[in-house]
């Protein structure tokens, strides 16, 4: 929860305060959804990086080591997802769909490749984890870039107003 609040706060700070006033009410929900999905996706990308590092001989010692700088992709994912939700819900929607597709496809391809490359039983799991992370990241970026962009906030939207997001920080 604390991470989510931090991510939302970071996204709110990072996103330009010039989000158009025309549909603020509509974009709070996509922004929040983008933030949550961004944390999950970023968290998964972080995991696949850890697994890839382990295959290269650089291990984490314990699960607690996942937190700290290794969780940066989760923060970045939250910021990106929130920003995309505000900037263009259509791009976010397409990024999420393609991210999921990439995740599934990458996991399956990675499973097969991992089984071929590494002989021990952990190899196929490692391959699936790395493939899923890579597929998710690629799918997400492609989805965001290839969407129609009809609802993008553009510079010509006229008046600017801040998006009001209430975040209580303990």
């Amino acid at each position, binding site marked *: 929860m604390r991470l989510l609040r931090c991510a939302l706060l970071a996204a709110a700070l990072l996103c330009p305060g010039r989000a158009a006033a025309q549909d603020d009410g509509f974009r709070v929900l996509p922004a929040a959804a983008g933030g949550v999905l961004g944390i999950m996706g970023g968290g998964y990308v972080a995991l696949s990086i850890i697994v890839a590092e382990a295959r290269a001989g650089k291990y984490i010692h*314990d699960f607690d080591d996942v937190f700290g700088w290794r969780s940066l992709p989760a923060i970045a994912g939250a910021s990106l997802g929130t920003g995309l939700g505000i900037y263009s819900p259509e791009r976010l929607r397409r990024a999420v769909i393609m991210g999921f597709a990439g995740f599934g496809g990458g996991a399956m391809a990675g499973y097969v490749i991992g089984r071929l490359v590494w002989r021990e039983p*952990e190899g196929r799991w490692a391959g699936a984890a790395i493939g899923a992370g890579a597929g998710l990241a690629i799918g997400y970026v492609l989805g965001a870039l290839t969407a129609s962009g009809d609802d993008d906030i553009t510079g010509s939207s006229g008046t600017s107003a801040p998006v009001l997001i209430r975040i209580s920080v303990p």
Partner: protein
Amino acid sequence: MRRGIVAAAMVALLVAACKPYIPDLPPSMIPEPAAADVETVVFLVGDAGHAIEERYPVMSVLRGDVEAWSRQLRGDTSVVVLYLGDIVYPDGMSAADEAGYARDSLVVQAQANVVAGPAARERGWAFFMAGNHDWGNARNTEGVARLQELERFLDRRRANGLRVRLLPEAGEPGPAVLDIGTRLTILLYDTAWWLLASDAARKARMFSQTEDALRRSRGRVVLFAAHHPWRSASPHGGNVGLWKAFGLRYLLNRSGAILQDLNSIPYRELTRSLERSFRVYPPLVFAGGHDHSLQVIQTEGEAEPRFAIVSGSASKVSDVGHIAGMRYRLAAPGYGKLYIRRDGHVDFIMVAAPDKDQLSCDGTGDALRECMTRAMASFRPRFGMRLQ
């Protein structure tokens, strides 16, 4: 509303379906042997790195047990306490000029005091093995420096009359070979060295020395002891809930990405190499800690120890699931006792509290004393079997 209820029921069903099945194990108990029938008692205690004497009842129970057996047995080293690593949490022994030194000293002193009773000073020995936390999870010289602090602390206690020692010595992989009495050989290893500071030449030497020791020990009871266990049904052995940390912990374990898990590539390499050594003469028992539970697993492989014992719950407790060959499991504070009998048999008894609530006591004054008394009274033999 109805759709919501159906969806919730389906989610609950899915969660229940994914929960691993843990079968009940048949109870097993043997009476504690008479002192006249016993040549040596070996106490197996692991992961005591938080166990300050005043708050962790297991240490007082252990101390009483060690003293009682030291009083009953004859012979110079008839009672042996093996601390199976993670002597000091979280980062090993601090240097004398560091802030954590006072607290770390209390923790190690509590473990050394187990052989401080009048009889235990005469007949007992406590051997401390390094765990990954004693290395501070740091590689090479940085980790060895932590171990040297611990070694110096124990050496000072030994100079004052307590029979305590770090084995293998700081930065050495082992085996440290102890021939105890007429029947028992103990091989001590620093398995954290393997994960944190190993090199090819010393690895090869370690295995050749192991094979020599096993060859020399034919006909004797061989006990392997190290921090990392041979097998385990707790988190480091792969018993991780699918839903824990949104599945991340589960996936990291399954993909062998955590160095300290038993399926990491370096640890797997160690067990495979040991299996080759065990073809010379397999040990009866491989005792380890690392996972914070009590387990007895009977193995069936030709090149495996016949029993894998996990005793790592002296100051932390974690869940334990099921694994093939499992004879006993308990997630509670406790320790194991191995009896080398004069008739050649080997008995094993696990002493433990009923559950993890007796791990430690908070509070001060009468409340603390009352909690400690109640918790200590709850420790009793929970499992026993003849191993040989």
